[in-house]
């Protein structure tokens, strides 16, 4: 009779997981509950295999190396990047129909308007924003529209800059827009036209890295959807502080439909527009 199959021994002890969890939290603000241990372990195991490392102790030393590349590789492996064009499009309508009217109310034509998508994942959100404004904001030709897009995951940023998408990502893109702003890229995929790709500034940003966040200032509108859900209360609070400082006084922040800034921070005002509820840094 064959012996029953045994589960492979865990690659990380409970103590090691706790140390890893603390380290990863300190560096990214992302807190993994004990219930996520198996999922996290699986991705760590994949990284260890990719590097031909057998012991977690050795791998952890690699991850914690100052300026070493493995922390970024692990961040890329652990963060979720599923999105599609025109997701939660009611917020795009809100920006074009209501928010930007307030933003430019006291600004002469020719002034700059800065919008920032974080996390931008593989680019669907900032490109959707660009397409929506080009097609729907009546004053788009009167102002210099600058769209910035950031993510903590360097691999998705490369994909975003390449701008090639499959059917799932493009399912809600109307045919006329597909013809106007995309070119066939083979295998049923489409690539955003180069003019639009080069119009968006992509950058790697960790909202918990003060140095990186100091580069992002005077933003008029931040799209920050499904980022804060990764954080615990304290990290959410710190992220809210950092986002507040990135906004120009009077600037707006749009969160995901299940998120509420009111539960995180009292820094922002709630603004109810016909298409969406958003949050505003009080004007100076």
């Amino acid at each position, binding site marked *: 009779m064959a012996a029953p199959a045994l589960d492979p021994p865990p690659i990380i002890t409970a103590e090691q997981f706790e140390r890893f969890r603390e380290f990863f939290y300190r560096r990214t603000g992302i807190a993994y509950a004990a219930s996520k241990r198996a999922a996290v372990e699986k991705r760590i195991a994949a990284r260890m295999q990719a590097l031909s490392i057998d012991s977690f102790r050795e791998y952890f030393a690699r991850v914690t190396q100052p300026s070493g590349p493995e922390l970024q590789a692990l961040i890329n492996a652990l963060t979720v990047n599923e999105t599609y064009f025109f997701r939660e499009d009611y917020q795009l309508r809100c920006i074009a129909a209501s928010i930007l009217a307030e933003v430019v109310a006291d600004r002469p034509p020719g002034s*700059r308007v800065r919008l920032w998508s974080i996390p931008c994942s593989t680019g669907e959100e900032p490109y959707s924003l*660009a397409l929506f404004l*080009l097609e729907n904001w009546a004053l*788009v*030709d009167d*102002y*210099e*529209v*600058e*769209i910035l897009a950031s993510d903590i995951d360097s691999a998705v940023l490369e994909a975003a800059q390449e701008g090639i998408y499959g059917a799932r990502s493009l399912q809600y893109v109307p045919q006329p827009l597909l013809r106007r702003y995309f070119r066939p890229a083979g295998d049923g995929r489409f690539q955003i036209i180069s*003019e*639009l790709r*080069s*119009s*968006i*500034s992509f950058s790697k940003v960790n909202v918990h890295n*003060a*140095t990186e966040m*100091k580069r992002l*200032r*005077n933003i008029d509108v931040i799209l920050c959807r499904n980022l804060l859900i990764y954080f615990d*209360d*304290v990290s959410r*609070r*710190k992220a809210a*502080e950092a986002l*507040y*400082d990135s906004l120009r006084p009077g600037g707006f922040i749009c969160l995901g439909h299940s998120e509420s800034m009111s539960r995180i*921070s*009292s*820094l922002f005002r709630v603004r109810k527009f016909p298409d969406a509820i958003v949050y505003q840094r*009080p004007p100076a």
Partner: protein
Amino acid sequence: MPLVTGNSGRTPRPDEQRGRPRDVAGLTAELRGADPQQRRWAARDLAGEAAAAAALCDQLEVEPEASVQEAILTALVDIDDESVPWRLADLLASDDAELRNAVIEALGQMGPRAEPAMAEKLDHADPDLRLFAVNALHGIDGPETRALLVRVLREEPEVNVCAAAAEVLIDVGADEALPALRGLPGRFPDHEFMTFLAETAAARLNDVG
């Protein structure tokens, strides 16, 4: 296409000059400056600096701007210094309701290290302070929190403080509090709400007895 990128040719705005290196002494001085924006940035940059804990607490006591108060509290939440919860606990007596609420939230986010300061406040003569301590304990969830709140149910004379403690215990699913929760209608026979709370507790905490 009206989309543009970058900031070429632009001189840095004054608010971007914050990027220069700043030490704790300099930041502490800026924390007391006249410009609220500078005070806020100083507080942000002092996050996690244990050496600045006292200065941050001092400024919080006199700080009039809500956005600076918030930045100071965020910085303090990140400082693992046992004096901080005690300093914040004193601000529970502030007349500024917004500040008080922000302090309660910050104490809750400090976790177990804020528990001893809140335990002491549970014995304060002012029932409002005892109530705020219960509110903060909701977030703290330390090793003694449930026992402290059960003691409130058994000994606290103010009905509102008891009700707040009951709500916390029900919310965190503290089965061990059931006997004390069942005793509330008897302790406060003139307050029907306590009967409702006891019934809610029984339903929520799977009381089959």
